[in-house]
């Protein structure tokens, strides 16, 4: 029993954190908003240089061959810096899915090395999401059809853009026609694969929400330590302190739930899906509370376009329903808790 990350994992996370601190300042995010694609080639290339895009790609295809636990740490950082890029869709989820496709070696050879070196973008279409993120820029789309997996080229789909309040989201409705030529896994195999993708995607969102929650808390702390009223920093008033302390509590108790879900996926535990849904609920609650409380301590500034809070707050709001809304995840947890014979008590936590 050891509920800590390996030193190596933490060291990699720290390196990514240092890099993003310099390369992903809020001003840069605003600049990227103004571009049509909403994405920066330059940033993606730099992220690839850090080794992030290669994380999940097996070594034989030019990657590092790491997994869920490494990603849970990296996704927290991607959330903390609100990186305007669906990086983990390609580098975590698509890499995971492609690696596990039955036998289609040419597809793996074609795409996995490109994922690793940061030159491919792959979008994922799953029925739990009405839209496909970043479909416009995708070199390849991996799409669900009756539990089958289909690999579809960008020019084989029709896209309609749905603008989001979150300026760096790029959501598309995708119309396409499945065929034998696009099918890369039959339903009997695809079912488990899509379940694996869904769980990892929900875990990735959970970790990003933890990062976002922490960032909004930090912004709230900074603001309330600097802003003075009645001759004192407002952060010295208990009413303000307690608003932010509540957020710290929420984050503190969401983290281990998210980490446990990552470990459960990495070790293929029977309850992994329940743990992921619990993680998603806990992390989204923490992020929404952090948004609300940080907004409150920011006062009127929090309601402006100018304050940086908006870029984290809107992301936190948007991600709440990404890869399963609360109803979806609560249903999965309820199914477990209220099923006959479920082991729910002390000592059952790690069953």
């Amino acid at each position, binding site marked *: 029993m050891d*509920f800590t990350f390996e030193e190596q994992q933490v060291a990699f996370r720290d390196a990514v954190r240092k890099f993003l601190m310099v390369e992903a300042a809020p001003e840069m995010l605003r600049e990227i908003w103004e571009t049509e694609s909403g994405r920066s080639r330059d940033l993606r290339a730099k992220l690839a240089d850090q080794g992030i895009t290669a994380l999940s790609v097996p070594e034989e295809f030019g990657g590092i061959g790491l997994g869920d636990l490494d990603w849970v740490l990296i996704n927290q950082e991607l959330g903390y810096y609100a990186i305007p890029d669906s990086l983990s869709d390609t580098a975590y989820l698509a890499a995971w899915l492609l690696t596990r496709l039955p036998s289609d070696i040419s597809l793996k050879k074609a795409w996995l090395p490109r994922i690793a070196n940061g030159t491919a973008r792959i979008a994922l279409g799953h029925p739990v999401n009405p839209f496909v993120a970043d479909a416009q820029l995708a070199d390849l789309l991996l799409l669900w059809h009756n539990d089958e997996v289909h690999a579809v080229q960008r020019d084989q789909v029709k896209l309609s853009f749905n603008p989001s309040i979150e300026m760096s989201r790029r959501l598309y409705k995708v119309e396409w026609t499945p065929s034998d030529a696009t099918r890369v896994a039959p339903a009997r195999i695809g079912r488990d694969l899509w379940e694996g993708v869904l769980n990892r995607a929900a875990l990735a969102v959970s970790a990003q929400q933890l990062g976002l929650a922490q960032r909004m808390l930090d912004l709230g702390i900074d603001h309330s330590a600097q802003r003075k009223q009645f001759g004192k920093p407002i952060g010295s008033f208990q009413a303000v*302190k307690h608003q932010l302390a509540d957020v710290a509590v929420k984050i503190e108790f969401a983290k281990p739930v998210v980490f446990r879900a990552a470990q459960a996926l990495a070790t293929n535990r029977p309850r992994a899906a329940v743990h992921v849904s619990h993680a998603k609920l806990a992390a989204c609650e923490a992020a929404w509370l952090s948004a609300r409380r940080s907004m409150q301590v920011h006062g009127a500034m929090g309601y402006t376009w100018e304050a940086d809070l908006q870029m984290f707050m809107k992301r936190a709001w948007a991600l709440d329903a990404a890869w399963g809304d609360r109803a979806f995840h609560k249903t999965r947890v309820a199914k477990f808790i209220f099923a006959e014979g479920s082991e729910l008590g002390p000592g059952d936590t790690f069953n």
Partner: protein
Amino acid sequence: MRLEYTDRQQRFRQEVRDWLEQHVPKQPLRSFDTEEGFADHRAWEGKLAGGRWSAVTWPKEVGGRGCDLIEWLIFEEEYWRAGAPLRVNQNGIFLLAPTLMEYGTEEQKQRFLPRMATGEDIWAQGWSEPGAGSDMAAIRCKAVRDGDHYVISGQKTWSTRAVWADWLFGLFRTDPESVRHHGLTFILLPLNLPGITIRPVQQLNGQTGFAEIFFDEVRVPVHNRLADEGAGWQVAMATAGFERGLMLRSPGRFQQTAKSLVELYLRHQAHADADPSVRDAVMQSWMGAEAYALATYRTASRMAKGAQIGAEASTNKIFWSELDLLMHETAMRILGARAELMPHAPDAGDIGNWLDGFLFAQAGPIYAGTNEIQRNIIAERMLGLPRS
């Protein structure tokens, strides 16, 4: 990260489970806030000690098993799972003992720990005074040095277990010129000394779980002092530190309650679902208990690797006390019109002891440092916000 128990840990769990299955009383003990119940619970502490289970984390020499924190968690899980009695000596074993081990002399450890382990000495705590509640540094109860004795005069209040306990540990002002947290000293004293008057205070449930204590020139030998004269505040903070955060309320307790709540809900589902928010509250309760267990395992793992736990301990206190309220409020809502009944009411049916737990849960956000004080600690020491 490895979230599986080792073979050794699994064998330990089995050993605990087997022992508890044989020894846990079939009938629940009477409340330890009654005289007879206190005696029942003291006898149970003795039985636990007989199996060397009363203080598993202590060194073997003083009655423990030298367990690490993970084994302690396993023990606690089994303890609550088995429905074993509440620990009448928890203030001694979980709060005073770790402090004694850190600050006590060898003589003091030998003198106090083995008798604490067996339940021969049950400990009460003496922190609060009429004018010193959340503001503990306002303590006035004085201990004046007279040769090799301290002469104690003043008053303590809300002293848990003091009505029938044998010993008291607490903070006293040894330097009459001092203010705030200076000049305080940590002293241990038997409650049967001449000059001590104990006045039981009736609690919300009608029983006398705590008491006021009046000291009228009570003479306590100087060798009952823990650590240096004037160092009491630091010693008390250690008592209130990670042990309070981690050991006072182990996750097994809340997980058992959450499990019972799920079962209660399922038994009454037809009625309960008429208010759709009940089902959600049941789920939140279970997820909360699970999160508390996970957070504790994470803390224990980090401490095993040498991490120090500071202000994060305050997040624990807030989390478990609010969780306990949520669970018991939810149970009351499920029980509906029968929730108010005393357990011995003729038509009480299966209401169990939810009412009692509900009453006790009201105290959670207040004792061991109010949740408002905890939020101040989190804001100032964890988040770095300016002091008021």
